[in-house]
């Protein structure tokens, strides 16, 4: 009898473990899988990646930091996805979509038979629920701005179980790109916290893994504070390779938290991690020397989409008690002053000394690697100290006997540049600019600040004179840039919160940006955006400096590794990655 009891327990344990197993589920009838075109791999292995800092949350709506987004991106899926390699949109949870003739109604057909990582079915209700959350004012999602077109939130309507209709207030260029990275959330798990007004507290790192489910290639299994977060295969994932093997191939995806880039490099060098993204050029050089002997490969993908720039504080400081800074704003507001600064900065030296040659100089906000949108006609004036001196002279500046630059009132031209102390590259840029400008007789101080303190000064208190920052890098399309270039934009850095455009050219940029947003034809949009780039280049609200190349690396046995310049650079196709040799990372091979 006792034996029978034992057997029964054993059987029960087996059954339970089968239920909870993360082995890929066999394909179901009526399930509309997406078939990928990658090299067919085999199952098994754990991929380990190091992150600089710990994610803050698993909540796709409230996550604002890069590490959280990197993890959440693997746990969730979107309706329409931007393929990181081709930079074009492709079907994801939506198998097809269509746009009405007037460009305002967008109809999306969903895949049938898709299930969340907890096995529950996915349908139009989940989509409607997700957008309801994103658009809810009380949730304060950072994505909400994108979903407000022409001042009105997008209307989302369920047509049938597998069809959703989106109605826009006005036509919107490249509307399908909005859907990229907007995670579709399970209504069955999140409706309750949402109804109770506790949505922001849902899905924290301490939430039980069973209560977190998504449509991404992996699902959450373990979080160890300060050490790692472990994701296991989502056995219901809706993609398969051409042999109908359900993806992903990897058993587990592990993110280690290591603190900084140098630690990432060390862990990769030691073989603890399989993939590394966004290495600095110096560390890249260091790793290249060892690549052949240690069995990893490095890739230089060319210039990123990010742009580093020097920005002067042109904010309205009237009610802020910052008299010293507002006195200096007469220089900063003078276009000739900014032109002189731009002309004196040696961008080639920045590329050489900061990026060890692995980067390109910039004269505009669009990186040369953004082939669809960069304005090829934008002038690239070479560095000229004499030119800069001429410009300053014509603007009424003069020099004292010791070479110090004076403005037309005889005031000494001196200002400080703030930069993030944790970002060695931007600190170096600041030091190079300081030296370049000292040749014009400007007395420039470099002030390293902790990144959050820097953001606080730039966005809240306006207590700074000039700053070195970087933007961009998300998408190649101009629309995400609206926030920067519209005078009402939240990252209109040099002059935030303008009630109306402060200058004529800002008004012009506003018009052009609005126009390109409504324009559906690529050629016409490109023409409008070229004009924007030229206006920016002529008026220099930011002095653009350089963009680094995207440098990544992976162990040689990681197959299907196709890094891209769009973020996430290396893990965007993680479901297709597999280990070439059997038994890599110590775990089982083909099953």
């Amino acid at each position, binding site marked *: 009898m006792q034996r029978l009891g034992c057997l029964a327990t054993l059987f029960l344990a087996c059954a339970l473990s089968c239920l909870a197993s993360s082995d890929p589920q066999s394909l179901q009838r009526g399930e509309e899988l997406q078939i990928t075109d990658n090299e067919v791999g085999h199952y098994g292995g754990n991929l380990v990646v190091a992150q600089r800092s710990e994610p803050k949350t698993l909540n796709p709506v409230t996550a604002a930091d890069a590490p959280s987004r990197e993890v959440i991106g693997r746990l969730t899926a979107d309706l329409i996805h931007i393929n990181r390699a081709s930079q074009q949109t492709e079907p994801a949870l939506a198998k097809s979509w269509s746009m009405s003739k007037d460009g305002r109604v967008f109809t999306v057909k969903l895949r049938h038979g898709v299930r969340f990582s907890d096995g529950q079915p996915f349908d139009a209700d989940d989509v409607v629920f997700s957008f309801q959350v994103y658009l809810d004012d009380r949730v304060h999602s950072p994505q909400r701005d994108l979903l407000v077109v022409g001042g009105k939130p997008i209307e989302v309507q369920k047509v049938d179980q597998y069809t959703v209709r989106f109605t826009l207030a006005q036509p919107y260029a490249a509307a399908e790109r909005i859907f990229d990275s907007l995670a579709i959330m399970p209504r069955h798990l999140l409706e309750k916290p949402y109804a109770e007004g506790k949505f922001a507290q849902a899905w924290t790192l301490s939430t039980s893994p069973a209560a977190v489910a998504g449509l991404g290639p992996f699902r959450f299994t373990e979080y160890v504070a300060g050490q790692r977060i472990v994701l296991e295969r989502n056995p219901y994932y809706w993609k398969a390779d051409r042999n109908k093997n359900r993806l992903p191939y990897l058993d587990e995806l592990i993110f280690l938290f290591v603190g900084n880039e*140098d630690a990432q*490099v*060390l862990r990769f060098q030691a073989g603890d991690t399989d993939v590394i993204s966004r290495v*600095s*050029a*110096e*560390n890249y*050089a*260091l790793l290249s020397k060892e690549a052949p002997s240690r069995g990893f490969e490095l890739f230089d993908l060319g210039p990123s989409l990010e742009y580093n720039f020097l920005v002067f504080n042109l904010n309205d400081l009237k009610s802020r008690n910052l008299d010293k800074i507002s006195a200096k704003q007469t220089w900063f507001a003078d276009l000739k002053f900014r032109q002189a600064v731009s002309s004196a900065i*040696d961008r080639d*030296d920045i590329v*050489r*000394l900061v990026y*060890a*040659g692995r980067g390109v100089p910039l004269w505009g906000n669009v990186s040369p690697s953004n082939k669809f949108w960069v304005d090829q006609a934008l002038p690239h004036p070479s560095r000229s100290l004499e030119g800069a001196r001429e410009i300053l002279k014509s603007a009424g500046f003069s020099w004292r006997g010791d070479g110090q630059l004076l403005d037309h009132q005889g005031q000494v031209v001196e200002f*400080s540049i*703030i930069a993030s*102390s944790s970002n*060695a590259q931007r600190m*170096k840029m*600041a*030091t*190079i600019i*300081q*030296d370049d400008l000292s040749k014009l007789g400007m007395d420039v*101080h*470099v*002030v*390293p*600040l902790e990144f959050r303190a820097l953001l606080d*000064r730039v966005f809240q208190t306006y*207590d*700074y*004179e000039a700053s070195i920052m970087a933007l961009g890098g998300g998408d190649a399309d101009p629309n995400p840039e609206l926030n920067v270039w519209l005078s009402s934009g939240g990252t209109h850095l040099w002059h935030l919160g303008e009630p109306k455009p402060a200058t004529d050219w800002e008004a012009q940029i506003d018009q052009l940006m609005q126009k390109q947003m409504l324009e559906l034809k690529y050629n016409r949009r490109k023409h409008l955006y070229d004009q924007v780039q030229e206006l920016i280049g002529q008026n220099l609200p930011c002095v653009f400096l350089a963009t680094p190349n995207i440098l990544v690396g992976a162990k040689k046995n990681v197959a299907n590794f196709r890094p891209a310049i769009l973020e996430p650079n290396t893990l965007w196709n993680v479901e297709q990655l597999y280990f070439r040799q059997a038994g890599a990372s110590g775990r089982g091979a083909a099953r």
Partner: protein
Amino acid sequence: MTSKRKIVTAVIFLLSLHLAILLAGFLAPYDPATQNRDFPFARPTRVRVVDAVGHLHARPFIYQYVARPHGIYEYEESREHQYPVHFFVAGPEYKIIGLWPSRIHLFGVEAPARIFLAGTDNYGRDQFSRILYGGRISVAAGLLATGTSLLLGLLIGCISGFYGKWLDESAMRLAELFLVLPWLYLLLAVRAFLPLHISPTQTFLLLVVVIGTIGWARPARLIRGIVLGAKNRKYVTASRGFGASDYYILRRHVLPHTYGILLTQAALLVPQYVIAEVTLSFFGLGLSEPMPSWGNLLANLRQYNVLVSYWWMFLPAVALVLVSFGYLNVANAFHERLQSGSI
């Protein structure tokens, strides 16, 4: 070695280090802020006496660096032309001991060649010049901060030991409080409250004041002990009987007892405070670029690739070790002398 000779050698060694730092402008071939952007992270130049064909030269010479094609910060010597090292050459202007302008440098080579005795940093700045100039700031900060600490310590120690009672009690409790303060965090906190941009001189003085005022407690306690012992000597009571004032007794009979302790404490505190300045600058809280200080120079090593690729970036640490060693040596010699009772 007798203790006297020990002191003399230790002091001479220390003085020569200080002299080198004081005469930085003369000894350094270049301005510490000049960037040679074609030579980032160049290794120290080899000064040669034998040329490529094996001929011996009476005057030392160098070969010019050229960047190695496709290398990252790698250079090779161009053997085409020899650049002899000249002495007492004209170069960039500087001020002798910060007072008299001059252009004469101890040594140099003709342009376009450059002589980098200790290599260059990320911007191609000559490290040898930077170490010398940086020493000025680091050592001066150490000396001034020690002065501040000892002055405060002497004042509080004397008052506390001489007058005793509640003054003594409160001063010593305060001293205990200062002793247990985690000074590094305190310094970090103080720096965070400062305005965004203050001039280098202000930053420097502030560093000195902050480092100096935190360290008064230990010398104050030591001096108090000595004053306590001295004030009850019979000759003190006698001079009091003759109507001597407190000030006279302190100056004439008590203070001389503290000199030995003061000297030893000074020799101990200076290296400690130099390291404090280096620590602060290392964390980016000291003087800002392009001013060199040993901490700023060492801060380059915070980057892993610098740490493992360019050994000459460690040279500022050697200078720091030499100075600390010099002072501790002097402190040691003083201490021995003090114990044998001859100071």
